[in-house]
C-alpha cells in the first residue's frame, strides 16, 4: 500500500497480514485473566502485564490476539529503542525519500494489538511517546509527517513489566504506570504448570510434575542470591531436553541450575534439590 501525503512524500505502510495469527496458541488460563482482558479490550483500555520473566505473559497476549481476532505486533524493548524506531522513519530509496511506518504506527493504522515487551528497558523519551495513546484521546502523533493518527476501536496497547528487578533505574514511572490496567502474572500454580510443562515439553505428566516440584523448590531460593526463581519457560526447556533423550539430572543442570545463576554454591544447592526430587 503506497499513498502520497503530498507531492513529495511517499508513505509506505507495512502489510498487516504477517501479524495475523493463523493457529491458536496453546494457553492455559490460570484465573480470570482472559475475561478481564476481553473487558479491557471492549472498554478500549490499555493493559500492563506484570510478572517475572517466562511466566506466560507473551503467550497470553498471543492467545488473546487470536481469540479477539486481531493481528498482534510485538516489540521487544531495549535501551536503544528510539521513538523513531516505534513510529517510523524516512529512508532514501533512489531519488526519493520514502516513509516507513514503525510497528506502533502500523498497529494503530490497522487496529492491531501492540505489545511492548519489557517496556522499562526502553529509553524514557520513547516511553513518553505512548502516553497520548493510553488516555481517552487515543491518538498517535507522527511528528515527522505532521499528522495525528486516531486509533481505531480495535487497537489495543499492551505492555509487560517485570517488577522483580528492583533497581531504581528500571522502575516504571508513575506517570506511565497510572495509564494502564494491571494484570498480575506469576508462575502458574503447580497443577497448571504441570500441564503446561507436559504439553509444551512433550514429557509425561510424572516427569512434568517432578520438574514443577523442582521449580517450586528452586523458587524458594529467591532472595538467597537468586534474583529470580526459575521460569516456566526454563522448566519447559528442561522438559524438552528430557523428551529428546537427555538424562534428567543433566537436563536440569543445563536448563535450570546453570542458566539462573553463576554462583557455584547456589548451583550445587539446586543440584541437590534436583537429585532429591528425581
Amino acid at each position, binding site marked *: 500500500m503506497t499513498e502520497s501525503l503530498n507531492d513529495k512524500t511517499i508513505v509506505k505502510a507495512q502489510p498487516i497480514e504477517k501479524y495475523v495469527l493463523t493457529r491458536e496458541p496453546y494457553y492455559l488460563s490460570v484465573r480470570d485473566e482472559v475475561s478481564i482482558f476481553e473487558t479491557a479490550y471492549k472498554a478500549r483500555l490499555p493493559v500492563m502485564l506484570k510478572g517475572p520473566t517466562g511466566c506466560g505473559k507473551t503467550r497470553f497476549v498471543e492467545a488473546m490476539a487470536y481469540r479477539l481476532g486481531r493481528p498482534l505486533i510485538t516489540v521487544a524493548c531495549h535501551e536503544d529503542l528510539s521513538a523513531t524506531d516505534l513510529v517510523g522513519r524516512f529512508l532514501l530509496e533512489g531519488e526519493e525519500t520514502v516513509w516507513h511506518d514503525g510497528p506502533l504506527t502500523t498497529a494503530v493504522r490497522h487496529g492491531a494489538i501492540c505489545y511492548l515487551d519489557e517496556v522499562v528497558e526502553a529509553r524514557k523519551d520513547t516511553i513518553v511517546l505512548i502516553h497520548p495513546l493510553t488516555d481517552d484521546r487515543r491518538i498517535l502523533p507522527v511528528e515527522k509527517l505532521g499528522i495525528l493518527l486516531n486509533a481505531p476501536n480495535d487497537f489495543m496497547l499492551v505492555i509487560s513489566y517485570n517488577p522483580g528487578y528492583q533497581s531504581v533505574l528500571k522502575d516504571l514511572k508513575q506517570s506511565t504506570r497510572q495509564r494502564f490496567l494491571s494484570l498480575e502474572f506469576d508462575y502458574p500454580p503447580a497443577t497448571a504448570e504441570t500441564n503446561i510443562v507436559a504439553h509444551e515439553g512433550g514429557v509425561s505428566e510424572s516427569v512434568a510434575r517432578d520438574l514443577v516440584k523442582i521449580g517450586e523448590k*528452586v523458587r*524458594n531460593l529467591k532472595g538467597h542470591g537468586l534474583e529470580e526463581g526459575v521460569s516456566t519457560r526454563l522448566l519447559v526447556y528442561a522438559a524438552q531436553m528430557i523428551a529428546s533423550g537427555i538424562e534428567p539430572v543433566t537436563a536440569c543442570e543445563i536448563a535450570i541450575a546453570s542458566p539462573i545463576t553463576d554462583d557455584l*554454591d547456589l548451583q550445587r544447592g*539446586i543440584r*541437590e534439590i*534436583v*537429585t*532429591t*526430587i*528425581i
Partner: protein
Amino acid sequence: MSEENKESGGPGGSLLRGLAGKTVEALALKMGLKPSDRGWVTLDIGASLMSASPKVAKDFFKAVPEVARMLENGDLRSWAEIGKRIAQQNAEEASDFFRYSIETLELLAEPLRRLLVALCVKQIVLSPAAALKTFRQSPALAASFGDEQSAARIFTIAVEVAHRSVKHSTEVLTAAPAALTALREMDDQASDAAIDSTLTLAESFAQRTGATAAEFLAAVGEGLGFLASPEVMVDLCRQTTIYLERGGATALQFFRSARAVIEVGGVESYRRWNQVTDKVAAEGNAIVYDFLRLTPKVLATIAATQRRHAAERIGAVLELVEELSSQNVYVALECFKSSPRAMASASLEQFQAWAREGVQLHRGDRRKAQAYYALESKSSQETLRGAHDGVALESVSHLLRLYVEGLTGREMAIAALGSIPEESRINDGHTIQLPSVVAEFGSPDDDFRLYKVLAAHAAGQVEFGTREAGTGSLRATLNEIETSFENAERRRLSAEMRDTEYVQYSNVEHLGLSNRRPLDPLAFETADYKTILSRFTNPLLATRIFTTLENGRIDWKLRHTYRGIRRDLDFVRNRLIERRPPIVELSVEQAVYEMLFQITLCGGVIDEAARRAYAGVILDFELIVAEYIRRDGATVADTLVATHRVYQLLDGQRSRKESDDQSEDDRDDTNQEQPDDRDGKSEQQQTSSQTRKRSDLFDQWSQAVEETTPTDTELLNELMNAETSEQALQDGDEVFFYDEWDRELGDHRAKWCRVIQRENRRGARDFVEQVRTRYSGIISSIRHQFQMLRPESLRRIKGEIDGEDFDLQAVIDHHVDLKTTGRPSDRLYIRRIRRERDVAVSFLLDMSSSTARTITRHPNQPYTRPGQKIIDIEKQGLVLMSEALEAVGDSYSISGFSSEGRRNVKYFIIKRFEEKYNQEVERRIGGITYHNNTRLGAAIRHAAAGLERQDARTRLLIVLSDGRPYDHDYGDSRYAREDTRTALRQSRIAGITPFCITIDRDSESELKDLYGEVGYTIIDDILSLPERLPGIYRRLTT
C-alpha cells in the same frame, strides 16, 4: 558408759567394789569353775569386768565353762578380751556378746571358731561394732560359704586382711558369698578347681596388700557368666598371680581388664591381649598399669561404635596391637589408644594399613607416633582414609542451608550440634542441628550424602508439619488421649479404693481427676505435639515413642514425595542397619524400643532370631505403623495416635508384668538385680544401657527430640585425654578451624585450632576523643601527609603509540632515526593515566595479657608520672592510624586476638573492611583490653583468610605484637615460632604482604628467626609507637 556405771554405784557395784582376788576366786568356785579348768586364766579378766559391771561379769562367768570347751586356751583368752573391749564401750552389748557366744560358736565348725576369734580380736582394736557384727553373722556367713574348707580359707583371708585393714576384712566376708556363687554357677564338675584358684589368688592378694583381696572377691562376685569354662578362670587367676609381683593394684586391674576383654572380645582376644600385656609389662610398672586401665575404656568405645562388628573388630585391633608391640611397645600402645577413633571412620582394611604405616614411620619416636595415631597430623589422616578426613559442617553449611531453604521455603539456620546453648538444642523449625563433622563413609561424596539425608529429614519435619499446632485433628487427638488417660486413672483409683477402708468417705470421682492437672483451654486451642505428649502419664516414654514414629513418618513422606532422595535414604539406611545393636543383647525393654525403631526406620526388624522371639509385638507394631504412619495424608496427629497405641501396648505389658511380679512399688526397675539372674545378664544390661546412651549420628532419629546427648566425640576425647576443653560460644560468635604446624612432626596438625570470631566489646567513646585531642597537632600533619598519597594525581607515561601530547624527545629521535636507520619508532606520544592506589590492609593486634605491662619514662615517679600499659599505647596507635587511613582512603580492617588453648583462639573484630570508621568502631577501640595468651599462628591464618577475600592489588597484614607467641598448649617456644613463621609464609604465598611491628628488643635473634622472612621493625621507644605507626605504614605503601 562404764564410767557411769562405776560412779552410779548400783547395788552390785557397791557390793563388789574393792573385792579382793580371794573373793573372786570364791565367786568363781561358787559358779562352778574348777581351778583345774583352763578357765582360771580368765579369772583376771573376769575380775576387771566385775569392776566395770557385775552384770557383764556374771554373763561372762556363765558363758566361760561352755566356751572353754570349744576354744583352746589362747583363743579363750582372746574371746574374753573381745568381751572386755566391748564392755569398755557398752556394757549392754558386752552382756549380749557373752550370752550369744555359746550358741554362735556351737554353730561353727571346729576350725572356724579359732579363726573367728582371731578375726574379731583384730577387728575389735579398731572397731568394736565391726567385730561384734562379724561375730554375730559368722554362722550365717559360714553357711553361705558352702563347704567348711572354703569357709575356713575365707576366714583365714579375712584374718590376714585384718592385719592391715579391719574395714576390708569385713568386706572380704561380705564379698565372698557372691564370689563363690558365681564360681559354682559356672560348672558343677570343674568349678572346684576354679574355686581353689580363686581362693589361692585371694590369699595371695591378702598377703600382699590386704584391701585388694576384698576388691578381688567383689570383682569375682560381679558374675562370671561370660567365661566359657572354669578352666579360663583358673588360667585367669594364674596370670593375675604373676601380676601380683607388681603390686596388688596392678594385679587387680589386670583381673578387671582381662575380664572386660573376655566379656567383649572372647577368650581368643583375651589370649592376644595377654601377650600384649606381657610385652608392655616388660617396659615397667607404670606403663603396664596405664595400659590395663585403658583397656576396658578402649574396648567399650569400640563396642559402642562398632556394635554389630564389635567382637570381630576388637579381635582385629588386638591382633594388630600384638603385631606392633613386637616392634615397639610404646608405639603399639598409642595405636591401641587411638583405635576406637580410627575405626569409627575407616574400614577395617584402612585401619590395618594405617596402623602398620604408623609403626613403620615412627618406630623410634614416641611423640611422632602419638601424633600420628592421635590422627593429629594430616598425613596420618590421609593414610587412614585415603586423603579424606571427613566433611566438616562448615564447608557445607551454606550449601545445606540453601538446600533446606529450597525444600521448605523458610529461613533456616544450620548449627553444629553442641555449639549452641543447651536449651535451644531442639530442632525448633528454624535451626537445624547437624554434627560438626561427618567422617563416616570414607569419601566426601558419601559423607555429604549423610548430611543431605539429615538435612532432608529436618526439612521434612518442617514441610510435613511436625510442629503444626491447633489443627482439628490435633485437637481431636488430644481429646481422645485425654479421655483415655482419665478413664484409666479412674479405673486404677477405683480398683485401689475397693480394698481401702476409707473409700466410703472419699469422693472417687474427685480423687480420680485430682492427679491430672487440668488442661488449660488456650493450650487446647493451640495444641501441638508437645502439648499432647505432656498429657501422657509418662511423658518421657511417650516422647521416646513419638520421636521414633514421627521420624518414621517423615522418612516415609520424604520417600513418597521425592523420588530422588530415596537413593540417599537407602544408602544411609544401610549404614544405619549395620550400626543397630543386636536385639538379643538388649534388655526386654530396650529390645522393644529397638524393634519399633527398626520397623519404622530400617524397614523391619533386622535379626532373624528376634523376629521369631518377638513375633507378637512385631506384628502389633507393624500394624500400627501401617495404619497410622505409612499412608498418604498422615499428619503429626496420626503419629500421636500411633504413639498412644504403642504406649498403651507397652504400658499394658508393663502392668501385666508388675502384677505377675507382685511387686510392691510401681516403679519400673528392669535393671534391678533379679535373684534368678544366673548368667550375669544384669551386668550386661547395664553396660548396654550405657552403650545406648552414647549417641551416634543416627540417634537423632530415635532419641527424644529435646534430649541432650553426649556425643561419641566427647567420649573419644576423654579417651585421648584431650587437654583443652572448648569454651562455650556466645551469641553471634563465628567459628573457624585452622591447621597448625608441628615442627617435630614436620607436618600440619589438621584443623588443630578453633578460632572464635567475635565483635570486640564496646568501651567508652571518650578514649578515641581524648587521643584525638591529645595528638591533635600530629593528627593534622598525618592527615596532610596521607592526603598527598591520594590517587588524585595523574601519571604521565611516555613513549605511547597514542596520547594527548607529543613526547618531544621521541619526536626528535624519530626524526633522527628517519634520517639514519630509516626505521623510526612510532611511539611518539605522552599519555596521562590515573595513578591507582589499590590497598587493603588488616591490622592485627596482640591483646594477650603481656600487653598489660606498664611502660614508663619515669620509673622513679610511679605516682606523679605514671606510665602506660602497652595495650593502651597500641590503642592510641590505632586511633592515629585510622586517621591516616581515612585520609588516604585505603580499605582497612582492625582486629585483635588472644587465646586460651588451641580450641579457644579469640579473634576480636574492631573494624571490618566494609564498616565505616564510625562511633561504633570508636567504641570498640575504646573497649580493647588484654586477655590470656598469644597463639599467633592461628590469628595470622585467620586474618590472612579475611584479607584474601579482598580484591585489592596490594594486600597488607600488619601484626602489632609485644614479643613472643605463647599459649599453654603451644609447644615449646620453638614450636610456636615455627608455626608463626609458617603461617606468615603461607600468607605470603597467598599474595599477602605481612609486616610485623614489635616492641621486644630483648630477643632480637629470636625475632629474626620469627619474622626474618617477612618484613619487620622493632620499636625501641614504645611510647613513640602512636606517632611512628602511620609513618611506617606510609613507607610500606609508597
